[in-house]
């Protein structure tokens, strides 16, 4: 088909890091602290562990067919019609989440920086660069991610170094008060948003990557590194801002950055945190969007996905305006309905796929041997 471009494992690693961090860096600490209180950081570690298992499952499935994307695997294993039906759901989820991320970014801006700016304008601007990136192709996206990861690291270090003097270990005590059940429960949101949703990366992995064996490692390591970023911010939020306050804040890491004050000189630099978040959010949105356009193109057997970018981009902007009526609704949905949606598409179908594959293994092998 149309995809001759291939990215290397390092570029893929960077994309996975950005995808894992995504929106989580600002929101996850609050969600974790709501139930687990001062044990939120333990919940983050648990989340990373379970997340890695999920990624391991994805890579295993994907490596059975190293030249196919997820949509093509679906069709191959489930058969033409059921496979297409599953893929439609998958593409719908990717599109929906693109819109959802647009809503996140504009809500953040209108809450914290520019309350009077209509979110349509913000969403169109954001979607504009996402569409632009996708039209330029995966290689361009990957290369720009390579550049931005440095910016990201530097900003991250600045925030962490400047806030670290304010860590109060008393805020973390008593350790392990929440109990195992609560901790695992509260980590579910984190697992779905950064690992289960990574199913969309199966549109890139392994078909569009040149060294597949190494790429598998990149997938796992990228997920781990992204998870560690979120862990660090959860740890800092709880130990600096306090568990109660972290849970009460909508954007706890932003509040964290507001606290930075080194000698009355280095202060009011919370926009760094905003910028950090935008970089990660942009790449997450672009990966969702790429998965959805490429998915639709493959579903319809189109030669090129580019004609789809603009119409689907417009659709995503409109969707982002109607997807949530208000912020409270959004928080409610993202912590209940979206988790079920993600788990059914990102975990249930892949598992089903693995089971069906186990039954049809021999038949599929014969097919491929005698084409």
């Amino acid at each position, binding site marked *: 088909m149309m995809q001759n471009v291939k990215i290397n494992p390092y570029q893929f690693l960077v994309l996975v890091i950005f995808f894992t961090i995504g929106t989580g860096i600002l929101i996850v600490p609050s969600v974790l602290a709501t139930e687990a209180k001062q044990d939120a950081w333990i919940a983050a570690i648990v989340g990373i562990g379970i997340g890695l298992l999920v990624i391991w499952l994805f890579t295993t499935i994907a490596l059975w067919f190293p030249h196919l994307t997820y949509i093509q695997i679906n069709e191959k294993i489930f058969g033409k019609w059921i496979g297409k039906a599953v893929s439609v759901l998958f593409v719908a989820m990717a599109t929906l989440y693109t819109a959802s991320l647009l809503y996140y970014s504009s809500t953040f801006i209108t809450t914290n920086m*520019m*309350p009077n700016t209509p979110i349509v304008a913000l969403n169109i601007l954001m979607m504009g660069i996402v569409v632009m990136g996708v039209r330029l192709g995966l290689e361009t996206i990957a290369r720009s991610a390579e550049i931005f990861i440095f910016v990201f690291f530097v900003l991250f270090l600045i925030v962490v170094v400047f806030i670290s003097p304010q860590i109060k270990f008393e805020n973390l005590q008593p350790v392990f*008060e929440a109990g195992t059940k609560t901790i695992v429960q509260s980590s579910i949101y984190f697992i779905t948003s950064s690992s289960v949703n990574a199913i969309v990366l199966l549109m890139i992995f392994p078909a569009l990557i040149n060294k597949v064996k190494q790429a598998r490692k990149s997938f796992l390591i990228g997920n781990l590194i992204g998870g560690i970023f979120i862990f660090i911010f959860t740890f800092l939020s709880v130990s600096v*801002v*306090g568990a109660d306050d972290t849970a009460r804040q909508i954007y706890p890491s932003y509040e964290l950055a507001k*606290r930075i004050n080194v000698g009355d000189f280095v202060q009011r630099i919370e926009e760094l945190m905003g910028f950090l978040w935008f970089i990660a959010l942009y790449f997450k949105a672009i990966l969702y969007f790429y998965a959805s356009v490429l998915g639709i193109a493959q579903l319809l057997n189109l030669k090129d996905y580019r004609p789809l970018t603009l119409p689907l981009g417009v659709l995503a902007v409109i969707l982002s305006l109607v997807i949530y009526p208000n912020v409270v609704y959004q928080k409610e949905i993202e912590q209940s309905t979206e988790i079920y949606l993600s788990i059914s598409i990102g975990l249930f179908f892949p598992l089903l796929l693995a089971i069906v594959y186990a039954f049809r293994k021999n038949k599929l092998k014969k097919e491929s041997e005698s084409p």
Partner: protein
Amino acid sequence: MKKCIVTLLVLTLFLSGCWDRRELNELGIAMAIGIDKTENEYVISAQVVVPSEVSMKASTGRSAVTLYTATGETVYEAIRKMTKNAPRKMYPGHLQILVINEDLAKEGIAESLELLSRDWELRSDFYVVVAKDITATEVLNVTTPIENIPANKMFNSLKTSEKNWAGTEGVILDELVTNLISDGKEAVLTGIQVLGNKETGTSKQNVESITPSTRIEYDNLAVFKEDQLVGWLNEEESRGYSDITNTVKKTVTSITCPKEGKIIIDIFRYHSKIIGSINKGEPEVDIKIEAEGNIGEVLCSIDIMEPETIDKLEKIYEEEVKEIIHQTIESVQKQYQSDIFGFGEAIHRSNPKEWNEMKEHWDEKFSDLTVNVHIDMKIRRIGTVNNSFLKKIKD
């Protein structure tokens, strides 16, 4: 070519307006906000910078700040209503200090703080203080020397006195809210007072004399229970509070000499830790203090060049501070039954299970809690002279 035109047309759509443009000359920068309450309305006063008076060149000698007041059923309403009176919309991003009226504090401060923690323009790094025996508006109405903007003077004097004297607490909004909702720690706030004639304090003449006739001064700590002010500590207790809660950075403490007279110790390093435990089913708290100090002033005839004397002085310091701490705790336990020291949190940290059982009736438990104080004090240096010349005079 066509593409270019289309792009330009699309761009003009977005670049034509900026919805959140606000120039500096449209902002009324509020440096201090005061909250009072009449019968059922809030009276909000905001001390706003007059930009032309702050700049070096164009200053005409008028006051550097001006005060706007407005009333409303809620804080937010009142602040917005202020535009009826002020030419610019209030911008609270540089807020330094929030003054709350004592009577309002007695009724409860939580409601008036809600907006301040929710609004996006506010940062939580401003201090909250209680106006003692006076309205918040009157406090904000006093001109101050050295610092042109009274809000800065209030902010800086609280900061420096907290750092160098102890007994005052610079409580920022977040700390206050955390303490208000915590089961195991109640809030304290520093009191602020106006000394002298309130009427003359408002004019520029007040700061033209060497000793201003009206001055703003910090008082001692106010004790809260839930969000209501229940009473005031005296100076010694306020300093005892700082001693316990590890907010002492530097301070001077006077101790009695073995025979008579006083010696002043200049404490330059101080650390205290509260450790909770459960002893035979009953909560207990240990306060561990490590301090280092220099001899600052010797007002008695004593041979400080003897190593034994130094040991003795360290002992006396330990005894006396221990006494102050015990007195402070006892008076708070007896008078207010309000755990301002955070002993409950200490027990929560050490014994979470037992804490969950006792947190419902912690106030009673607190009032007969056993507190053990362990102090380790070291005298390091004695200044630039050895034995005092006072010794020679007296001999």
